[in-house]
């Protein structure tokens, strides 16, 4: 019985932490955020070299053959650093291809090597994320769909699209430059993680996986978003705590005021146990399959709600400075707005968790 990180995992986290401190301080985050693409190929290449794209890819396909937990730890560190770029979409693409088995396998080496950047197109208009209710259709290898929020679609070499064909819901592969694909940028609240509005008109697409792989991919997404939220809230909390220890008012550090102390105590009281929830969900993905979907839903709902609260309370605790553009807090405030929204809102996943519990 061991519910903790391995020495390797701890080291991996440390490595990423140091990497982002040096390669992607918030000054760099802002530069990338304000660029047109919101994507820095150089930074991405370095992440590839660190093996981030191959984490869950089997060794025989050139990856490290690790588990979703390891991928989630990377997501946590990206969240802590507010690192911009296509990590999330590419990670979900990797999960999808892996779950697809034989038909996905050929792609995995190229994903691991960074030669191919993948992304997923799942949600549809009217905030629809329920596979059964998706409108995207594939007829004789031709895809018709409108997907409003596809991470870094413009940069992706491969888009894995959730759609229905005569066999029912599944995942369909669309390669870069395929016919009938139109990609428009969406100006998003979180400019560190871009999304594009993608329309597919009779686009050649071939089925690579069925409903099981699709829902596994969604579960993985929920867990990675929860991990990102945890990394982000940790950072917000640390900023607030340090500020409370330094900033003086009325002749004492504000952290000496009981109101501030108790607000910080209330936050850490929520944050600490929340970590264990997404850890468990991530561990379940590979080891306790029947528990995964429910815990992924609970973790996404709980962690993103909490991220939202922590980002807000941290900003309020900072007072005016926390509300400025120059101060970094809003980077995470905006990431919290992304995490709560992407893949469906908290109430939706609580309702799913209730169904999955058989209540």
């Amino acid at each position, binding site marked *: 019985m061991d519910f903790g990180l391995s020495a390797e995992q701890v080291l991996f986290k440390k490595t990423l932490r140091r990497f982002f401190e040096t390669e992607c301080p918030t000054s760099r985050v802002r530069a990338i955020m304000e660029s047109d693409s919101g994507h820095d190929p150089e930074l991405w290449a370095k992440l590839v070299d660190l093996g981030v794209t191959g984490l869950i890819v089997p060794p025989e396909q050139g990856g490290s053959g690790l588990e979703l937990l390891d991928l989630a730890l990377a997501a946590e560190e990206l969240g802590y650093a507010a690192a911009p770029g296509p990590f999330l979409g590419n990670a979900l693409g990797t999960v999808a291809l892996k779950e697809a088995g034989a038909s996905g396998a050929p792609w995995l080496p190229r994903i691991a090597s960074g030669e191919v950047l993948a992304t997923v197109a799942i949600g549809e208009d009217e905030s629809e994320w329920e596979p059964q209710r998706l409108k995207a259709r594939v007829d004789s290898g031709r895809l018709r769909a409108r997907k409003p929020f596809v991470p870094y679609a413009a940069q992706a070499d491969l888009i894995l699209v959730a759609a229905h064909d005569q066999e029912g819901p599944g995942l369909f592969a669309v390669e870069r430059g395929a016919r009938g694909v139109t990609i428009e940028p969406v100006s998003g609240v979180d400019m560190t993680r871009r999304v594009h509005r993608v329309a597919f008109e009779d686009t050649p697409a071939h089925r690579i996986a069925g409903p099981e792989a699709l829902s596994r991919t969604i579960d993985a997404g929920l867990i990675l978003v929860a991990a990102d939220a945890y990394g982000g809230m940790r950072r917000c909390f640390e900023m607030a705590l340090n500020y409370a220890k330094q900033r003086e008012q009325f002749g004492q550090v504000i952290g000496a005021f009981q109101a501030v102390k108790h607000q910080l105590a209330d936050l850490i009281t929520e944050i600490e146990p929340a970590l264990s929830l997404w850890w468990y969900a991530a561990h379940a993905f590979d080891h306790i399959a029947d528990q995964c979907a429910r815990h992924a839903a609970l973790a996404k709902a709980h962690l993103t709600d909490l991220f939202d609260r922590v980002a807000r309370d941290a900003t309020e605790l900072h007072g005016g400075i926390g509300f400025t553009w120059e101060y970094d807090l809003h980077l995470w405030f905006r990431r919290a*707005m992304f995490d709560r*929204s992407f893949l469906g809102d908290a109430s939706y996943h609580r309702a799913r968790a209730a169904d999955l519990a058989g209540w």
Partner: protein
Amino acid sequence: MDLRYTPEYEDFRKEVQQFLAEHWTDEDIAAAPPPEDERAALMGASVRTDERATAFRLKAIERGYLYRHVPRAYGGGEQPPDPLKAAIIAEEFRKRKAPHEVIGQGPSMLVPTLLEHGTEAQKQRFIRDTILGKIVWCQGYSEPNAGSDLASLRTRGEVDGDFWVINGHKIWTSDAQRADWMFCLVRTERDAPKHEGISYILIDMKSPGITVRPLRQMTGTADFNEVFFDNVRVPVENTVGKRGQGWIVSRSTLKHERALIGASFMNRRMLDGVILLAQGVMLRGKPAIQDPVVRDRLAALEARLRAAECHELRLLTMSARREEPGVASMVTKLYSTQLGYQIAKLAMDILADRGLMAPGEPQAPAMGMFATAYMWSLGILIAGGTANIQRNIIAERGLELPRDPATQRR
């Protein structure tokens, strides 16, 4: 209890309506210059200071409809305080989209201060033009290291002949670019105890040595500024009240009837907007408004907002009856800022993944204005002095609990 106005007041309302019909024509309304930003748009006609608006205000003042607390001698309407008449005027002006009293820190903060502490010359020189919006003011209180704690102000002024020489740095000054003048707190008495060393000084923003730098907020827009003073020379006669008395001078609060009403107006607009949103978008496969969780939360917020709106009627009545509202009036700010946040949060939850879209994104419901509102709800909370400051005030002044030893020390 009777929510109808008495015949006398209904006659007064008719009189106001008649006045508006005569003096604020559809043509005047149509001639509105485009609002500068979303907030200006929300505030409506009161932000107008164009020719037509000024001409109209002069007539309204003449009739005693505006600036009722300002003596005629200084260009005011000079009327005995009557909160009910003030409420009727505000209602009817809003209905008719007519320019009410100019919005800004000049009319709302400087004018009452001058009326209480200003010299005759200062009153004559500034009040009339300020209430007509001809002189735009900004406030120079906050500093990077003195937020809610004014006692630790660092911007200092030294006397040089008949001038103050001012050096320092102010922050969170709204309107600083367009402002003609700033009313400013400056440390002038080096050796005096913290609170007593401050003077209240009026500074011409065109003076050499002043640099204004826009301050961008998390929303991405810049509605505030930083102002830097580098040996700025200001005539000593621009001091309001005695040297070193700036702390007391700055505390002359708005004795204004209007202070009491309208705090819920913005929240009402927001909540009605959220209801429209919920009726317009789908959530989990059906119209959001049909979602029981959404309905439950909407009704809970409607109850809180109706309480606030009725509470304003109660405060208005108290003031009409010359009763001391006491703590009842101290809670409104904390209550309404928190309610504003709760409303904005529900909007975000209803938007669900549509909340991914930034303000201005054409595909976003209501052009993504809810995302801005969500961030603003936080800014407003902070701007009003953080909630903790509000709680201190309520607990200490409202509930007569012991003052905080730390804040007491000052």
